[in-house]
């Protein structure tokens, strides 16, 4: 479960002054559900997710991930989540097996358990053919599968995806989408950040629209359609971020 309460992150820049990257963001996501964070580039999605993953500390506010506070137990938070983003790359000079084992060890797993989980994931993701090859020789699809295996090796309760299909071809993107659905089916708590409307429509149970660091609207797709009297998610998004549309009474 994820519970974010009034998360705020302020950066200080010499030239631009104070930047409020995330401003009073609160949301909640239960196990077995996917929460979609929808926003344009620079809206504050990545910063919000980095706050949840304890990569950054909130200026104001707090959050709990799988029951652990991001401020008080950051290590346990990270042990409970899998974080997959376009910016989380792999070590090119390691093999897929070595990469998966490395992250297993960092999650406190012993060699026997790592071997069992690696086999299971390699079966599911059809990775056996390239498991012992170096990552820098991989195709994008192979890299994605290795990243997924790296994220799942410790079987985390919470999964965070930040623009996971960015720069991927159709087939690789479909692998990701299928994998996210599987996570939901297994009862994982999933946060999915993207700017691609179709992915949100396909995947997310709840949608949070973020703009300029503020969460402007939250609800299921149907709720948003009803509230803004608009069927097309893109139109709803534009109405919300431009402030041109009022929610229907």
């Amino acid at each position, binding site marked *: 479960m994820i519970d974010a309460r009034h998360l705020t992150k302020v*950066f200080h820049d010499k030239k631009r002054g104070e930047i409020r990257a995330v401003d009073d963001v609160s949301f909640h996501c239960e196990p077995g559900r996917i929460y979609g964070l929808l926003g344009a580039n620079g809206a504050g999605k990545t910063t919000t997710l*980095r706050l949840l*993953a304890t*990569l*950054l*500390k909130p200026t104001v506010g707090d959050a709990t991930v799988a029951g652990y506070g991001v401020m008080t137990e950051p*290590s*346990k938070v*990270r*042990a409970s*989540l899998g*974080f997959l*983003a376009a*910016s*989380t*790359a*792999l*070590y*090119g*000079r*390691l093999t897929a097996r*070595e990469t998966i084992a*490395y*992250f297993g*060890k*960092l*999650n*406190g797993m012993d060699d026997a358990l790592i071997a069992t989980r690696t086999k299971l994931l390699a079966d599911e993701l059809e990775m056996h053919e390239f498991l012992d090859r*170096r990552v820098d020789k991989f195709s994008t699809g192979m890299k994605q599968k290795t990243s997924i295996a*790296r994220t799942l090796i410790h079987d985390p309760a919470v999964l965070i995806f930040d623009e996971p299909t960015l720069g991927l071809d159709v087939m690789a993107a479909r692998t990701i989408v299928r994998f996210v659905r599987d996570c939901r089916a297994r009862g994982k708590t999933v946060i999915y950040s993207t700017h691609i409307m179709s992915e949100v429509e396909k995947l997310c149970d709840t949608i949070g629209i973020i703009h300029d660091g503020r969460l402007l609207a939250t609800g299921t797709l149907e709720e948003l359609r009803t509230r803004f009297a608009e069927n097309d998610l893109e139109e709803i998004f534009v109405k919300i971020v431009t402030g041109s549309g009022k929610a229907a009474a």
Partner: protein
Amino acid sequence: MKTRDILTVYFKELRDTLRDKRTIITMFVIPTVVMPAIIFGFGFVASKVVRQARAETPTVMILGAAASPEVRAALEASPRLRIVPAGDDYRVRISEKRLRAAVELPDDFDAALARGETAQVRIYHYEGEIKSGFAAGELDRFFRDYREKAIQARLDARGLPAALIKPFDVARQNVAPPEKVGGAIIGGFIPYIIILLCFTGAMYPAMDLTAGEKERGTMETILCSPIGRTELVLGKFLMVLTGSLSTVVLAGVSSAITIPLGGMFFSRSASAVAANAAASGGTMPLIDPLGLMASFVMVLPVAVLFAAAIFTIALFAKSYKEAQSTVSPLIVVVILPALAGMLPGVELNAKLALVPLLNVSLVCKELVSGVFHWDLLALIFGSTCVYAAAALALAVRMFNREDVIFRT
């Protein structure tokens, strides 16, 4: 602090680094192959140049001595000089290396000697030009012998003994053991090389494990794992330290093998060198082996200091290239105190023992000469450890700063 996590990171980084061509070149190829090749290459070229210069009979011009057939004949008879016809352009010809040297004598040089007067001999040569220098040396030797003969003739003519002008002999006897002589000659050079290798060995792994990871996007991946930042820094730091120390050790081992071999090869008297080495009980007869080992021990905290300092600086960079442009100029900062330690007259004292790098440079110079000042050794080792610990603490602190890790 979890030792298991530190070791997990360390062994992963070691494996990763050993598969990186750039780091392998700096850590292994340069100290074990390139450095000895440079030493050999330089030695080979230098010995060839000197051998060729010595083999040449230098061309010499005689200026003046128009009425002095005796000295002229003696010069022309010398097998070590080739006399060429005189000309006014001797300065130009010496400068253009078409003539090695010229000797100017008074026209009545022979007569002046016969009269018992002092005649002036002037040798023209080109300072810094090796063949011209050899020619001037040959002329020096010729006229020294010629003067000795003239003196002897004057003494004989007056029936005086040779002891009249040589009332006593002066002989110099060296009491310094060979390692002290070696320490004085090359003692300053060894710490300079060790410090430089220590720095370059740390440089590439440090940049790769910080800025390189940021650039490749793996930094965020590892930060998402449950490992603590301190454990992560220490694991990476150990790898940088390994890079630094292995470079120094490999260079040391490689030099210990190649330098004596090079000496044997270039001296053309292998048996003499081997006998000398055997008599000294080691492969490095000119320096104190215990002092050399102690120098490596003294360099340990320096390696820690370099590893932590470069790690911290490279952490600020967004890319490997940016890290390179920030870290590379620091070589000058490292070289200056190491060079200052080589200057004659800069002696180790309690104040200088607190100056980082200069202190190690000076003490290593003493150590390889077999001089052990235990109080200063303790002070230097202790102070360098403090600097190294401070640098490591700073590295951990910087790694915990969001604006450093996520600098955009």
